[in-house]
C-alpha cells in the first residue's frame, strides 16, 4: 500500500489542478484547495489509526529504485516521529487554507504555491532516502519565496529573498555533508537507516565536519542562534496563513532533521558537539524571550517567542535521554499548534484593525469575548501553564535535560519567566483596561476564523489534559532513538 505517497502527492495533484482552473473562478479554486488539503488531512488521520503504536520500526514502507546510478531510492516510511509531524502538517495546512480564503489577490497562484509547499513539507517528513529528503527540503523553498514575496507585508521582497538565500546557504552545505556521508559509506548509499547503522564507524574528525555541514542546514531552519535573523522578518512579513506554516511546520524541519539524521548517523560527533548545542539552546531560550519582550508589534512578539520555544526543543534534544527526546518532539507538536493559532489570532485582529501595535488596543475582552477567550487559552498554553499543551513539552524538556545539564537548565528558567511576563503584559494591554473606543465598530470572529482556530484550541486542551494521546504515538520510536545514542 502506498499511503505515504498518496499523502505527499495529493497536494501536488491539487496544485496542478488549480493551475488548470481559470484564474477568475475564485470559488472553484478555493474549493479545489480545500478538497486537496482535506483529503490529505483525512489520509493523515487514517495514518494515525492504521499506525502500529507499539513498535519503533518504519511502517508503510515504500521502496522503489529511482536513480540506480547513485543508489538512490524512492524510499519512504514513517515511524512515530514522522507520523506525528505529518499529521501536524496536514492539519495546519488545512486550517490555514481555510483561513486564507480571505485572500483576494491572485488567488490561483496563492493556492498553487501553498499546495506545492505542503507537498514539499510532507515529503521531508516521510523520506528515508537522504537524496529524496533533500529534494523535498528544497521544494519547500521556492513556494515559500513566492508566498512571502507576493502576498506579504511592506518589506516582503527583502524578507522573501533573505529567507531564500539564508535557507539555501544552509541547505547547500547540508548537500555537501550528505555527499560526504554517501562517499564514506560502503556500499555507497543515501539510505538514512543504513547510514545510521554504519555511521558510528566513521572517524571522529570526519564526523565532526559532516555534522557541522548538516547542522548548518538544520540550524538555519530551526532557527538556532546566530542564524535566526531571517525568522522575525519572514514571519512578520508573510501573510497570516503562511506565517502559520512557517512557524508551525517549517521550523520543525530543522529539529526533525537533527533527530532523524544528525543524531543517529553521527553519534560520536553529536557527543562532541553537545556542549555547544546546549549553549545555543540556552541562548535561544533566553535571548529569544528577551527579544520578544522588547517588541511592540504583536506578530513580531510571537515570532521571537518561536525562537524561544525552539530553544526548549533543542534543550530537550541535548538531554540524550528518552524523556528529553519525548519532550523535544512534544514541544515540536505543541509549538506548532499553539504558535500556529497565535499567528492566526494575530491575523484576525490585524485584518480588522490594520495594526498590530500592542499599545493601540485596550479592553478588547469585554467587546470580543470569543476572540479574547481563544487568545488567552493559547497565550497561557504558550507560556507553559499546566493543563495546557505547552506545559507538557516544556516540562519534559526541562525534566530530561536537568540530570545532564542542571546549571544550563537553571539559566533557561529565566526564559520561562520572561515569556510569562511579556505574554501577560500583552494580555493586559490588549484585552484588559479601558476600552479604546477607536475599535468600537469591529466585529468579533466570524465563522471562517472560528473554523480555522477552534480545532487548534481544542487540541491544545486535549493534549494538555491527556498527553498520552500524543505521547503513546511517539514514545516507542523515541525510546529506540535514545537507545541508539547510548
Amino acid at each position: 500500500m502506498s499511503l505515504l505517497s498518496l499523502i505527499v502527492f495529493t497536494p501536488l495533484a491539487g496544485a496542478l489542478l488549480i493551475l488548470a482552473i481559470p484564474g477568475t473562478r475564485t470559488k472553484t479554486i478555493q474549493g479545489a484547495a480545500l478538497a486537496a488539503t482535506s483529503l490529505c488531512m483525512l489520509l493523515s488521520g487514517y495514518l494515525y489509526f492504521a499506525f502500529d503504536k507499539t513498535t519503533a520500526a518504519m511502517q508503510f514502507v515504500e521502496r522503489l529504485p529511482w536513480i540506480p546510478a547513485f543508489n538512490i531510492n524512492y524510499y519512504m516510511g514513517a515511524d512515530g516521529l514522522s507520523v506525528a509531524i505529518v499529521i501536524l502538517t496536514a492539519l495546519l495546512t488545512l486550517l490555514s487554507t481555510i483561513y486564507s480564503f480571505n485572500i483576494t489577490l491572485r488567488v490561483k497562484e496563492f493556492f498553487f504555491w501553498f499546495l506545492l509547499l505542503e507537498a514539499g513539507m510532507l515529503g521531508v517528513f516521510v523520506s528515508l532516502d537522504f537524496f529524496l529528503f533533500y529534494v523535498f527540503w528544497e521544494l519547500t523553498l521556492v513556494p515559500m519565496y513566492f508566498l512571502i514575496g507576493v502576498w506579504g507585508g511592506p518589506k516582503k521582497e527583502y524578507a522573501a529573498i533573505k529567507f531564500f538565500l539564508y535557507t539555501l546557504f544552509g541547505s547547500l552545505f547540508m548537500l555537501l555533508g550528505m555527499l560526504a556521508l554517501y562517499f564514506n559509506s560502503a556500499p555507497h548509499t543515501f539510505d538514512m537507516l543504513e547510514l545510521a547503522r554504519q555511521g558510528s564507524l566513521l572517524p571522529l574528525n570526519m564526523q565532526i565536519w559532516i555534522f557541522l555541514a548538516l547542522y548548518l542546514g538544520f540550524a538555519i531552519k530551526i532557527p538556532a542562534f546566530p542564524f535566526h535573523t531571517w525568522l522575525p522578518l519572514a514571519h512578520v512579513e508573510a501573510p497570516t496563513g503562511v506565517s502559520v506554516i512557517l512557524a508551525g511546520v517549517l521550523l520543525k524541519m530543522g529539529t526533525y532533521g537533527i533527530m532523524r539524521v544528525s543524531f543517529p548517523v553521527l553519534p560520536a560527533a553529536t557527543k562532541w558537539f553537545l556542549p555547544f548545542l546546549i549553549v545555543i539552546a540556552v541562548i535561544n531560550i533566553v535571548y529569544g524571550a528577551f527579544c520578544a519582550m522588547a517588541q511592540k508589534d504583536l506578530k513580531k512578539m510571537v515570532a521571537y517567542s518561536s525562537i524561544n520555544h525552539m530553544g526548549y526543543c533543542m534543550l530537550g534534544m541535548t538531554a540524550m535521554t528518552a524523556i528529553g527526546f519525548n519532550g523535544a518532539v512534544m514541544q515540536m507538536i505543541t509549538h506548532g499548534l499553539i504558535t500556529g493559532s497565535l499567528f492566526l489570532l494575530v491575523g484576525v485582529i490585524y485584518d480588522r484593525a490594520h495594526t498590530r501595535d500592542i499599545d493601540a488596543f485596550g479592553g478588547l475582552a469585554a467587546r470580543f469575548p470569543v476572540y479574547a477567550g481563544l487568545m488567552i487559552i493559547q497565550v497561557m498554553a504558550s507560556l507553559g501553564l499546566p493543563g495546557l499543551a505547552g506545559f507538557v513539552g516544556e516540562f519534559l524538556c526541562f525534566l530530561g535535560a536537568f540530570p545532564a545539564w542542571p546549571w544550563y537548565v537553571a539559566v533557561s528558567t529565566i526564559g520561562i519567566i520572561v515569556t510569562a511576563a511579556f505574554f501577560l503584559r500583552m494580555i493586559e494591554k490588549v484585552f484588559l483596561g479601558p476600552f479604546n473606543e477607536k475599535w468600537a465598530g469591529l466585529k468579533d470572529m466570524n465563522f471562517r476564523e472560528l473554523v480555522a482556530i477552534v480545532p487548534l484550541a481544542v487540541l491544545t486542551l486535549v493534549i494538555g489534559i491527556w498527553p498520552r494521546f500524543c505521547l503513546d504515538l511517539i514514545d516507542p520510536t523515541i525510546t529506540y532513538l535514545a537507545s541508539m545514542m547510548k
Partner: protein
Amino acid sequence: MTNIILLNPEIILACAGLLILLAGAFIGENRAKLLYHLGTISAAAVLGMIITQAAFSAYGTGTMWILDPGAQLFKFVILVATILTLLLSVNYSAIQPRHIGTYTALLLWASCGMMFLSGAMDLIYLLISLELISISCFILTGFEQKNPRSAEGAIKYFLMGSLSTAVTVYGISLFYGATGTTNLLAYASAADLHLSDPAYIMGMLFILVGFGFKISMVPFHFWAPDAYEGAPTPVTAYLSVASKLAALGAMLRIFTVVIPHGSLNLTLIIAVLAALTMTLGNLTALFQTNIKRLLAYSSIAQAGYMLIGLVVADPLGREGVLFYSLAYLVTNMGAFAVAMVVAGKTGSYELDAYNGLARRSLGLSIVMVMFLLSLAGIPPLAGFVAKFYVFSSAVNSQHYLWLAVLGVLNSVVSVYYYMNIARRMFFTERKDFSAVETDIYTTGVIVFTSAATLLMGLLPQTCMRIVKDCVSFHL
C-alpha cells in the same frame, strides 16, 4: 583517409549548408522562411544518423578523427542546439529575408565545425574545426546589420577570437616541436618522454588558452557579454550552448583522457581558473540590467561549474561534465527562448521588461522560473542533478572539496540574480495586462526544453546511463 565514411554526417550537413546557400540566392523573399525549415530538416536528419550510429555503438578511427560515444554525445548536443536555434530564428524579425539562406548555411557550417571538433584527434584537424566555428560565428554575431551593438559584438568577438586562434596555433607549433607530431592518438600511444619538456607543457598551456576563449573561461571571457548582447538572440543562445559545449567536449577529451592535465601539472591552474570563472561570472551577473548580458555572465559561471568536473577528471567528474552539458543545453536554450519571446512583445531586453509578467502570462513566467531555478541548481530540475553530479565528484576526490564549497557559495550568490528576475515577474506590478503571445515554433522550443528540464531532474537515470556509457568506453 581510410575512414572518411565516419565523417558522413558532417559531410552531409556541410553539403546541406551549401545547397541552402545556393537556394537562398534564388528563392523569393516571401518564401525565404522555407530555408529555415530546410535547415531544420537537414539537421534533424543528421541527428537521426548520429542516434542510429550510437545505437550500434560502433566506433572507428581515421587518421585524424575518432568516433566514440563521447563524441557522438556532443554531436547530439550540438545538433539539438542547432535545431532549437533554427526554430527560434523562424520568427525572429531582425534577420532580413534575403539573408536567411546565408544565415542558415552559416549556422549549419558552424555546427559542422563543432561536430568535427568533438571527434578531433589531431591538432591540425582541431585547428581547422575551431576556425570553421569561429568564422561562421563571427559573421552570425554581426548579422543584425541595422544594430550597431551587433557590429560591436562581432568585432570584439572577432578580435579576441583571432588572438585566441593565434595563441592556439603557437601552442600547436610548440607541441609539434617537442613531440614531433600533431597527432594526439599517435602521441598517446607513443612516448611519455617529453613530459618534462617545457616547450611541450607551454604548448599545452597555450592550447588550453585557446579553449578557454571558446568556453569563456575567466580571464578570457571578455568578449562574451558584448558578443552575446549584440548577436541576434537565437545566435546568442547558440553561442552560449553549442559553441561552448563543443569546445568543452574537446577540452574534456584532450585534457582528461588523451593527455591528463595531472601529468602536465596543470591541474592547479585549471582548478584556480574554474574557481575564478564561476566566482567572477556570478559576481558580475549580480549587476546586470540586460537579460542577455545577465545570461552571458551566468553562462560564464556555468562554465566554471562544469570545469569542476574537468579538474577532478576521474570518471565521476567526466560523467558530471557530460550530464551538465545535457542539462545546460535544455535549460539555457529555454531561458533564451523565453527572453526572446518577452523581448518580442516588449521590444526590450532590459530586465524592466519582466515587471509584472506573471499577471500577463502566468505559464510563461512559471516556465521561466523553472529555467532560472534549474540554472541555479534547485531540485527537482535538471540543473540540480547536474550540480549534484559535479559537486559529488569534487567531494569524492577530497582534494578538490574546496571547489565544491566554492561552487556551493556561488550557487547561493547566483540565486540572488536569478530570483531577481522571478521577483520582477511575480512581485512587481505593471499596468499593461495584455498577454505575451508565442508563435508555434517558439512554443515548441519552450515546451520541449521545459519538459526536458523537468524530466532530467525527476528521472535522470536514462541520461546518467548514457553518460556512464560514454565515459566507460575505451578504444
